[in-house]
């Protein structure tokens, strides 16, 4: 019987054919890159000498381990986004890492060897202040967590609570720091701003208050910002108003001793807020008595507290110290100091922490990327060499969120571009032609033809033909050479020099804009970063809009992209104009924009250099053009009356349309106002300008044609009700013509709530919402048709379409939440469309648009069958073979970008979020590509056979005819 069952199982496996990627196709057309985000805490795992791990906890709520040799991820844990998953504190002891997560909501312990969770406990509510490890007799067994009103101590082994105590006078005192140096006491430091410090000492054993003292400190307002604990429990604070150091013995707590910096012969750079850094190598022991004092952006000193006296160990002169950091290995502690070497390199030196003397042979010089940010933090891994001297590696964190790992004597081991974990917007740009092709273009360009005579043109043609021949032979030689090598050795290194468009334009340049203000150029085929450029003046709350002004099609003019960077608060904007292939800033100087910008739009007009015209509308409703040459202004004047644009003011619920005037001022032509007390505008989506629709209509079952309503100016406006009660909340959909302001259709989805995701394309709008009544996600599709005949089949004008379109709508149940949604896009729009849906689980679903079709019939008839309509089913089922990223989970998908390729069947897809995933999709299968295993031999032999057969039969027929003629 067992065998029978086994057999059945085998049969089952054989029957269920998986219909997705083949195993050998994994990674062939797709790639994924995983990121962790901007590093907040880092720790080098040093418990084993050979450990190759650096642990990082980041601002993207990720806790991960990186391989220090390669920079690859060893493991990664992604928590919830937002403040709920925020990593507040990072504590490390032996092989355990303790994290406080979500403003003190959770305490988690991780085993760093395997990345497994040891334990996790929920903490009592209350806003988190500080946490520290508590040791006794050299062993750390507890962790103390300080909240606004309570302090609790937990066992490190299992997370159980040892004791919890309410803090005295927590209404008036703002407790900020907890400290322990391994003598069985826990110090809690609180402050009454501009009055005094309160120190509460708890007994480690039972949480009893041993001592509670107040010390006058009227100048102090923030303990963690200006104070550190040094040496034998001495609290050292820096006062930036009187420029002095203040020392308080935590064990005696008499009063603060003030030592003016001037008495030490130190001066603070004007306007700089001095700061202190101390080091506690082992939480069960006292901190070092040495500490750093930063007096200016390039001035850091190493000081020592010795019997209440401050001794200057080293002021590192004449070095300009940018960053300094302590590192401990064994019993030795060193201070690593980073200073600029020259314009393109930095140097790092090691100093002994207790003497301040420089260690020999420890200089490390490394080059810096001129297009990167300044170094921000220094993470040092020190280790003991065989001869007992100290060796070290450093991980430098720069302003642009990049991590660079450097080994002595200055070899960059790896760089991680963590800015890519937060891509805001992107574009795909065609690669340029090859060098030879470009040369041909250049030689027979317009200018050349006018200047030269006939003879020189012939010579040029010959020479360029020679060049082409040469290139071809070189190519053949390379093919032959590569063919002899084993496949694994053939490396197709893509560098910026050999970038060129491939036959089917499948390889493109991905220009990615990240929230940190760093721009990247990534090769879409391999995922390699080809260029990067850091914009250092980007405000933290900037909104970005990336536009391609000139594509690569206009040789010798370089392609040109323009990035509009707008400060969300002030509305002030700047333009960054660059070449998307090389990342270099363009020679074209962008106009200064002194006024806040309301709207920007790309016009189909081009100037004499083939750059599309960008119009910017400021808050005075004045329009400025970029580029603003005479030619452009003249064209604008000629076409002004047909240039319309709209502005959405969601805070006032106002949508207004404007028309350009010949003097580049504007006039308001329409206005729609949605009262904000009832609903608010959440989305306004137009169609993509590069979208092509191949067929104007749909052929019905009875062979008549239902024409689509293809209005390129149509806007889908989505509103959400302000009333969130589940009975009264609703989602509103408005379809408005962007030129005339005519409301084409408006629908209300009752008992529905956001978040709404919308895709607007061709003649349809698909939106997804949460149904509060049925508690499920639902999809709805609206399709617009002109009817059985077209009003004006030659040209579409919003000003001349008097008939309202027919509107069809249908809704479906979707069994999952979604993160983002986009539609596929192909070159000519012949291929059927799919919706690409990013799910919170990390899958990317390719859902055929066929399933979202309001014409799906309830009852099947002969005609609907003829039309290939799927009978209506209320639920959309997620089929596993629809996942385009098989097991390559994409964490926290925020956006999906689609671009057409040179092949009509193929659409390039990039999903970005915490990870980046690039692949190709074939919504209608690869109808224009021969399969990899296509039998060329068979087809050619058949062809040849047929050819010879016709030849022979022709000859035979001729002979026969001749014979007949003789007869």
């Amino acid at each position, binding site marked *: 019987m067992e*065998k*029978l069952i086994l*057999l*059945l199982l085998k*049969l089952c496996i054989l029957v269920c054919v998986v219909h997705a990627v083949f195993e050998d196709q994994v990674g062939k057309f797709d790639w994924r890159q995983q990121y962790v985000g901007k590093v907040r805490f880092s720790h080098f795992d040093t418990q084993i000498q050979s450990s190759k791990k650096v642990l990082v906890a980041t601002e993207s709520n990720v806790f991960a381990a990186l391989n220090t040799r390669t920079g690859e991820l060893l493991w990664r844990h992604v928590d919830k986004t937002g403040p709920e998953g925020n990593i507040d504190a990072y504590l490390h002891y032996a092989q355990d890492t303790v994290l406080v997560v979500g403003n003190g909501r959770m305490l988690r312990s991780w085993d760093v060897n395997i990345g497994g969770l040891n334990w996790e406990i929920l903490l009592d509510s209350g806003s988190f202040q500080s946490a520290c490890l508590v040791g006794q007799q050299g062993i750390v067994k507890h962790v103390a967590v300080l909240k606004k009103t309570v302090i609790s101590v937990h066992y490190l082994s299992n997370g159980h609570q040892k004791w919890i105590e309410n803090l005295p006078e927590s209404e008036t005192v703002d407790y900020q720091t907890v400290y322990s140096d391994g003598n069985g006491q826990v110090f809690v430091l609180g402050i009454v701003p501009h009055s005094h410090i309160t120190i509460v000492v708890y007994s480690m054993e039972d949480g009893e208050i041993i001592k509670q003292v107040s010390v006058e400190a009227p100048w102090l307002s923030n303990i963690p910002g200006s104070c550190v604990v040094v040496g034998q429990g001495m609290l050292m604070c820096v006062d930036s108003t009187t420029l002095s150091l203040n020392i308080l013995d935590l064990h005696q707590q008499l009063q603060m001793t003030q030592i003016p910096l001037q008495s030490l012969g130190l001066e603070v750079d004007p306007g700089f807020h001095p700061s202190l850094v101390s080091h506690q190598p082992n939480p069960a022991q006292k901190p070092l008595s040495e500490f750093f004092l930063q007096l200016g952006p390039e001035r850091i000193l190493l000081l020592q507290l010795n019997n209440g006296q401050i001794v200057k160990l080293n002021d590192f002169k004449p070095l300009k110290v940018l960053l300094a950091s302590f590192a401990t290995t064994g019993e030795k502690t060193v201070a690593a100091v980073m200073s600029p070497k020259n314009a393109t390199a930095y140097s790092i030196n090691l100093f002994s922490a207790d003497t301040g003397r420089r260690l020999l042979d420890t200089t490390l010089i490394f080059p810096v990327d001129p297009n990167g940010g300044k170094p921000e933090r220094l993470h040092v891994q020190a280790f003991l060499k065989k001869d007992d001297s100290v060796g070290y590696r450093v991980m430098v964190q720069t302003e642009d969120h990049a991590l660079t790992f450097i080994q002595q004597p200055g070899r960059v081991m790896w760089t991680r571009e963590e800015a890519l974990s937060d891509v805001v917007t992107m574009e795909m740009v065609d690669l340029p032609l090859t060098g030879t092709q470009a040369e041909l273009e250049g030689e027979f360009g317009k200018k050349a033809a006018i200047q030269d005579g006939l003879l020189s043109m012939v010579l040029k043609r010959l020479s360029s033909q020679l060049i082409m021949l040469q290139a071809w032979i070189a190519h053949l030689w390379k093919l032959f050479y590569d063919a002899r090598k084993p496949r694994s050795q053939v490396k197709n290194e893509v560098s910026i020099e050999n970038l060129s468009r491939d036959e089917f334009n499948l390889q493109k340049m991905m220009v990615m804009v990240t929230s940190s203000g760093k721009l990247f150029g990534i090769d879409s085929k391999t995922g390699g970063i080809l260029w990067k450029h850091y914009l250092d003046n980007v405000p933290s709350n900037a909104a970005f809009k990336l536009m391609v002004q000139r594509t690569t099609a206009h040789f010798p003019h370089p392609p040109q992209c323009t990035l509009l960077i707008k400060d969300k608060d002030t509305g002030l904007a700047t333009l960054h104009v660059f070449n998307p292939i090389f990342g270099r800033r363009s020679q074209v100087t962008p106009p200064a924009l002194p006024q806040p910008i309301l709207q920007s739009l790309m016009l189909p007009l081009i100037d004499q250099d083939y750059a599309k015209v960008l119009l910017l509308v400021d808050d005075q409703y004045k329009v400025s053009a970029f580029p603003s040459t005479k030619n452009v202004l003249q064209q604008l004047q000629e076409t002004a*009356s047909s240039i319309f644009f709209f502005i959405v003011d969601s805070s006032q619920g106002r949508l207004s349309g404007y*028309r350009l*005037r010949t003097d580049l001022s504007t*006039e*308001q*032509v*329409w*206005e*729609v*106002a*949605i*009262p904000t007390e*009832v*609903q608010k505008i959440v989305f306004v989506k137009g169609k993509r300008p590069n979208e092509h629709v191949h067929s104007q209509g749909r052929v019905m079952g009875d062979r008549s044609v239902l024409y689509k309503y293809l209005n390129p100016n149509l806007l889908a406006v989505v509103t959400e*009700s302000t009333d969130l009660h589940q009975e009264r909340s*609703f989602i*509103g*959909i408005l379809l*408005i013509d962007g030129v*005339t*302001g*005519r*409301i084409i*259709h*408006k*629908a*209300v*989805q*009752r008992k529905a709530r956001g978040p709404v995701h919308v895709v607007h394309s061709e003649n349809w709008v698909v939106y997804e919402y949460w*149904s509060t*009544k*049925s508690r499920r996600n*639902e999809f*709805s599709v609206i399709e617009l048709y002109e009817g059985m005949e077209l009003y*004006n089949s030659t040209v579409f004008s919003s*000003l*001349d*379409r*008097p008939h309202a379109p027919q509107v069809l*709508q*249908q*809704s*479906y*149940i979707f069994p999952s939440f979604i993160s983002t949604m986009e539609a596929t896009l192909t070159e000519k729009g012949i291929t059927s469309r799919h919706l690409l849906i990013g799910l919170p689980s990390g899958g990317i679903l390719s859902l055929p648009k066929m399933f979202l079709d309001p014409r799906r019939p*309830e*009852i099947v008839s002969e005609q609907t069958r003829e039309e290939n309509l799927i009978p*209506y*089913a*209320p*639920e959309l089922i997620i089929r596993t073979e629809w996942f385009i990223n098989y097991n390559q989970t994409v964490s926290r998908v925020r956006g999906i970008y689609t671009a057409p390729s040179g092949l009509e069947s193929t659409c390039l897809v990039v999903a970005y979020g915490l990870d980046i995933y690039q692949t190709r999709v074939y919504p209608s299968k690869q109808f224009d590509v021969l399969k990899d295993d296509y039998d060329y031999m068979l087809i050619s032999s058949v062809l040849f056979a047929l050819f010879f057969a016709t030849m022979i039969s022709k000859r035979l027929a001729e002979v026969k005819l001749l014979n007949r003629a003789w007869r």
Partner: protein
Amino acid sequence: MLLHVSPLPVSAFSKMARVLPLNVAVIFMLLLFLCASLVCCNNGRRAGDPSETELSGFSVPLEHSFELDDVAKFQSRGSLLLKTGREPSVSLLQNQLSEEDRAKLKEVAAVDGLYRIRVPRVFLQTERQAEGQMEGYLTAFVRACAMVESHLSDVITLHTDVSGFLIGVSIVTFPGACRGTEVEDEVDLEVFNTTLSIMAPVNAPGPETALFLERMELETEKKGKNPQEQKSFFAKYWYLILGGAIFLMLSNSAQPPAGGGREQS
């Protein structure tokens, strides 16, 4: 009477009004008005409502502007008579174009200017009638030439939102194209031939589970009648399974000696 209760397009009988003297037109409108309120009173259930008196509606100005320099100067075109309530409806009373205006409209059409209309933002629900008027206007436009060439026949639609706020107005002419045909007869430009309607948002459909389930049930019933389908998996394919099992057994019993032979060698 039905005309006013339905939310369907209501045409204002301006053509008729042209023939009649103006005061007659007013009386005619009043008459329609009375009819409308009568209908509502006949409604029965609503009788005694505090909003009853307001069901008669209120009027707001409809203004238009067509200027040679395209700087909007709105003048009265007529007044919209809005009937509030659960199913709001609207009717229009509008003036004729003066000779001066006709000439100006033709001039504006010649330079491809715009013909704009505007209505104030109002609230059509009865309960909050007092605060009905809000600040600002809703505007829309058509090309002046389209207005001229269509002999002032336009379609104006007022759009309301769920709660009865007027959110937008749209105007199209019929025919909508500007072909450059000269309008000779001045009389053609005297009277508006307006089709007016008010539109509330439609309710978007949810997933239709009930109908689908019904259909499924029907199908299962059909299947139930057919005993051929009722057979279980084993009942249908027992011979295949048996054959497979025998094959497996045979192959298994054949294997051990071969393995044993290898062990010995």
